[in-house]
């Protein structure tokens, strides 16, 4: 493409249709009906192309337009002034969302969420055009199809095959002037390469390149100064579109019809905005839009036809605002991403005026040095030479990212891939997070979060950062609460980490914080819940409690409320919990819920959270469990007993943790009743053995040897006896080491078993004893051997101490303990 100076051509939007434009007479034209004075220049750009950005800026400074039209949602016209605010730092994005819908509590809103983004980086031509216009004091208008229509189209009844506004369009992959719709459908381009799908690919192939990005980089983005590229771009696009139009209808194949219609509508709207700007009396108008649209804007289409195209489009209520964006998001190809492969590189190209290669490699060397990799200036010099030699070898005008990366790999990293990846992450993509000024329209929730962030000195950052919070400090405690509240709202800014290698003290929490742009959407949606983070989280928790289906959900919600210090939501959650507990017929559910609540109660104490309501619920729950347990343990088979055993142990442990005498007494009374059952109503052997043991440990039984004798006597089926023994002995065999009576009973029972019964119970016994530590087993074995000897235990040996020899050691020990040594 040989750049040629812009040529004036006579045409006007309102003019009657005439013969199609001759290729090459693009870019600039006059409006005859405005007395040959109105001038329109159309700059076809690649979204997020640094070369385009520089060229647009230069062209605008030269053209000095009276109004600038930019491809983007017209709803943002009122917001555009904010771009001049010093607090506005790209990358930022225009966000369009449907306000005022109350999302349901269970998170189902995610599926029907509607929001769209128009991201801008420092190196985006649109951004440069905005900044130019604001600096020069000329009005800026956005000329794309309003977001109201674009969002409305995502209704389910819309054209199903439509790839949506995120659909592919020229220029190819740098597709981002389009709102990146949440629904990723249509992002995957069909394999067929049509002109429309990949217009630059066609041009690149014509120029002998296999990669469209590289071709565009070479001919446009990497150009330094020189004549404006826009006439040539317009010419090329006009040619392409003419070719495409000449194709038979069916060969538009790969694109669904909805997409073409959408494009028609968008271009009609652009033309309409242009007409209005001219009608408003602006005589010099500049339009900045995707290169593909240039011919459409220059085409002479009667106003009436455009009006017809635009009539009756579905509409929805839309609010707009600016949100911070990240380079990482620009690089993503899916979701909200823009598919710019190397935003960091483009940013560098745009901002570093001269010597981009040298500056880039020097920066790369610094990044590597920060990681303690030895890289000298000599390395950088050689890397620059290699990059330039490679560019020459490949016939490129300037070393591009490929060449620079090769140089980094071969020279700076000495062939090592890992540091190359580091450069890729830190520099080529670059984790730059933009910011928006204070006065940007925000939902109150966002403002509240900002205030909290300032108060707690937690700065949003696009790189993940670890925080270790010590909950004993007020600041850290508040931070933890904020993060927990945000998680309740579905904003996972912080993700709790398992503390590794540190003490598991309850006063420590580790978080990984990383801000993602879509959190702003979540916040805006969560704005329906309240105006402060605290209030919204409480409201959401209350709503979740009302919808919770199981007791377990409620208990975990209660735990989260406590962590987030949502005292106002807690009563509602607790009421729901109490109600649910009252109607839940399955005592196992209640028992499963209890430990978590008791934990929360104890944990709440550590964090200084008021736990009054929780206490009430726990009290109620204990009573219910004690009432419900006796009927629930009747007639259980082996598996069910084993499961119940786990629940009983958990509740028992939880009650010990709780340390409430009333509850413990009630619980032990319940157990006592169960143990005393007899005959048909007797509980399973496993449970009975275990309960006996629990009561023995609690000192509530004084006839344990008798009970054991009964359990293992001849009248009892051997398998029940074995189960009893297993239950009784589970969780440690030290009892047998210390209680000769029990051991003798057990020994007698086993020795007296008939041969076939012995074979039957052997596996159960093995399971019981197999669970003990080796030392315990050995100790038990030794005791058993001595039982036969019938001698008195060797306790007497312990008294055989030589006081004289021990005196020195005892004195030292006493001194260490700080006591006065006996004289």
């Amino acid at each position, binding site marked *: 493409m040989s750049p040629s100076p812009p040529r004036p051509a006579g045409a006007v939007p309102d003019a009657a249709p005439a013969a199609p434009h001759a290729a090459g007479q693009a870019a600039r034209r006059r409006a005859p009906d405005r007395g040959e004075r109105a001038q329109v220049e159309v700059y076809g750009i690649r979204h997020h192309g640094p070369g385009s950005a520089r060229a647009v800026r230069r062209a605008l400074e030269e053209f000095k337009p009276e109004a600038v039209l930019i491809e983007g949602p017209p709803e943002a016209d009122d917001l555009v002034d904010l771009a001049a605010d010093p607090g506005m730092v790209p990358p930022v994005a225009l966000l369009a969302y449907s306000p005022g819908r109350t999302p349901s509590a269970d998170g189902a809103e995610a599926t029907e969420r509607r929001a769209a983004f128009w991201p801008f980086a420092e190196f985006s031509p649109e951004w440069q055009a905005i900044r130019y216009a604001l600096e020069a004091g000329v009005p800026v208008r956005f000329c794309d199809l309003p977001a109201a229509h674009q969002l409305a189209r995502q209704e389910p009844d819309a054209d199903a095959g439509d790839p949506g506004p995120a659909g592919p369009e020229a220029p190819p992959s740098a597709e981002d002037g389009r709102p990146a719709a949440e629904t990723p459908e249509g992002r995957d381009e069909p394999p067929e390469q049509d002109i429309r799908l990949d217009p630059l690919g066609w041009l690149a192939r014509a120029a002998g390149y296999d990669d469209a990005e590289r071709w565009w980089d070479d001919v446009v983005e990497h150009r330094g100064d020189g004549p404006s590229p826009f006439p040539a771009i317009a010419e090329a696009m006009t040619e392409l579109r003419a070719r495409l139009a000449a194709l038979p209808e069916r060969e538009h194949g790969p694109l669904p019809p909805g997409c073409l219609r959408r494009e028609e509508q968008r271009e009609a709207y652009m033309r309409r905005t242009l007409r209005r700007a001219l009608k408003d009396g602006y005589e010099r108008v500049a339009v900045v839009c995707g290169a593909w649209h240039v011919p459409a804007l220059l085409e002479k289409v009667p106003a009436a036809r455009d009006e017809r195209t635009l009539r009756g489009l579905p509409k929805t209520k839309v609010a707009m605002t600016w949100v911070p964006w990240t380079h990482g998001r620009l690089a993503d190809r899916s979701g909200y991403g823009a598919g710019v492969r190397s935003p960091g590189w483009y940013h560098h190209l745009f901002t570093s005026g001269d010597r981009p290669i040298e500056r880039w490699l020097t920066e790369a060397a610094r990044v590597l040095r920060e990681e303690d990799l*030895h890289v*000298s200036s*000599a*390395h950088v010099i*050689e890397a620059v*030479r*290699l990059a330039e*030699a*490679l560019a*020459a*070898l*490949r*016939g490129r005008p300037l070393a591009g990212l*490929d060449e620079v990366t*090769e140089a980094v*790999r*071969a*020279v700076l990293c*000495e*062939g090592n*891939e890992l540091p190359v990846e580091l450069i890729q992450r830190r520099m080529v993509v670059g984790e730059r997070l933009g910011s928006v000024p204070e006065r940007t329209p925000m939902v109150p929730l966002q403002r509240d979060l900002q205030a909290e962030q300032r108060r707690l000195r937690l700065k949003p950052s696009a790189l993940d950062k670890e925080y270790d919070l010590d909950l004993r400090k007020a600041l850290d405690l508040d931070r933890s609460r904020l993060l927990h509240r945000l998680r309740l709202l579905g904003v996972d800014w912080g993700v709790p980490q398992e503390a590794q290698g540190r003490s598991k003290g309850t006063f420590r929490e580790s978080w990984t914080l990383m801000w993602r742009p879509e959190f702003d959407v979540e916040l805006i949606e969560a704005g329906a819940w309240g105006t402060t983070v605290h209030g919204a989280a409480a409201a959401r928790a209350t709503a979740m409690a009302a919808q919770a289906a199981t007791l377990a959900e409620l208990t975990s919600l209660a735990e989260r409320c406590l962590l987030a210090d949502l005292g106002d939501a807690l009563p509602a959650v607790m009421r729901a919990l109490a109600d649910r507990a009252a109607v839940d017929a399955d005592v196992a559910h209640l028992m499963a819920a209890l430990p978590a609540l008791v934990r929360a109660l104890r944990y709440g104490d550590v964090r200084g959270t008021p736990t009054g309501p929780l206490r009430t619920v726990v009290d109620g729950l204990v009573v219910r469990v004690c009432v419900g347990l006796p009927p629930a343990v009747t007639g259980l088979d082996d598996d069910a007993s084993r499961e119940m055993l786990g629940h009983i142990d958990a509740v028992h442990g939880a009650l010990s943790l709780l340390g409430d005498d009333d509850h413990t007494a009630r619980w032990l009374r319940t157990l006592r009743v169960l143990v005393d059952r007899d005959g048909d109503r007797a509980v399973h052997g496993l449970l009975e053995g275990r309960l006996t043991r629990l009561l023995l440990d609690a000192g509530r039984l004084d006839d344990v040897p008798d009970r054991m004798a009964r359990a293992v006597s001849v009248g009892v089926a051997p398998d029940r006896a074995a189960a009893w023994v297993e239950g009784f002995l589970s969780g440690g065999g030290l009892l047998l080491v210390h209680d000769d009576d029990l051991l003798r009973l057990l020994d007698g029972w086993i020795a007296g078993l008939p041969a076939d019964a012995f074979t039957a119970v052997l596996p159960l016994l093995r399971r019981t004893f197999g669970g003990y530590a080796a030392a315990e087993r050995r100790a038990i074995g030794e005791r058993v051997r001595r039982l036969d000897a019938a001698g008195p235990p060797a306790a007497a040996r312990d008294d055989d101490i030589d006081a004289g020899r021990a005196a020195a050691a005892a004195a030292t020990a006493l001194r260490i303990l700080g006591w006065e040594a006996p004289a």
Partner: protein
Amino acid sequence: MTTDSTPPAGVLRPHAEQQYADELARLAEHDDRPRPPGWRLSPWAVTTYLMGGELPDGSRISPKYIGPRRLMEVAVATLATDRALLLLGVPGTAKTWVSEHLAAAVSGDSTLLVQGTAGTTEEAVRYGWNYARLLAEGPSEKALVESPLMKAMRTGAVARIEELTRMPGDVQDTLITILSEKTLPVPELGVEVQARKGFTVIATANDRDRGVNELSSALRRRFNTVVLPLPATAEEEVDIVARRVEQIGRALELPDAPAGLDEIRRVVTVFRELRAGLTDDGRTKLKSPSGTLSTAEAISVITNGLALAAHFGDGVLRAADVAGGIVGAVVQDPVSDRVAWQEYLETVVRERPGWQDFYRACREVS
């Protein structure tokens, strides 16, 4: 200097510049791009020579290196900036092959070679003396025996150093002055040899040998590093093996036995799977034997099989012809590798449809 002339008859392995003299000449003829001083061809033509291509007159340049083009471009660009080039890679990734062809294309001479071993001395890198003459006539330039490196400096050619990391560290470090100052002083005679334009060094080193004599960072800094990877896909590797086997077969004047592509594919598959410790379908984990199982070894297994088939078999490469070679390549350690091989044979080869003949042949020789 060895020139583009044809090699004397009966030479076992002609140098690259002899074997491909025709291609080099035709490239030079069509090469109208600027050549760096001392170069026979432009960097662009050197890349074409390595990667293959078509010339304006329709004649074809055969590819010498099959792999990513960008690697060769980096290598050529490195030489064009008179930097030294270090080719790294596991054994059998064509490091030596690439270095020979680069030297042949750039300076038309791939024979200025220093082989690095544990016994390489400084004389081999710098210069030695003809002691008879030294004693008889005293120190003079005539008594000087110059190293390949010195000759390359004098003539402005590419010198090659094989297995750089096997040289003792102090010998390696004699390269530092040569590479940075581009001069080689001879204090005994009070003279120095200053490198002409076009002089540079291509060194190869083995990834797995890194621990042997790690390069000092001062020396490392003077090299641009290109890591040659193992072939990315099975098809690429089959292509490399088939091509080389054909060339070697021609050079050795083996009776014409068609190297069945199927058999080559099978050998390559076995090598790739054992190397990766994973079957191609990614579903079975395997023990990896201790050998490197490089592409170069696959080539020698096939060549060996071809010789067997031609001389003792029916002239067609069959499973039995390659089985012996494969077992020899895989089982380097008689204990652990044998286990790995047997497991592979019994769990993977045996089950694989169409591999029955191969399985039987391997069982016979294992």
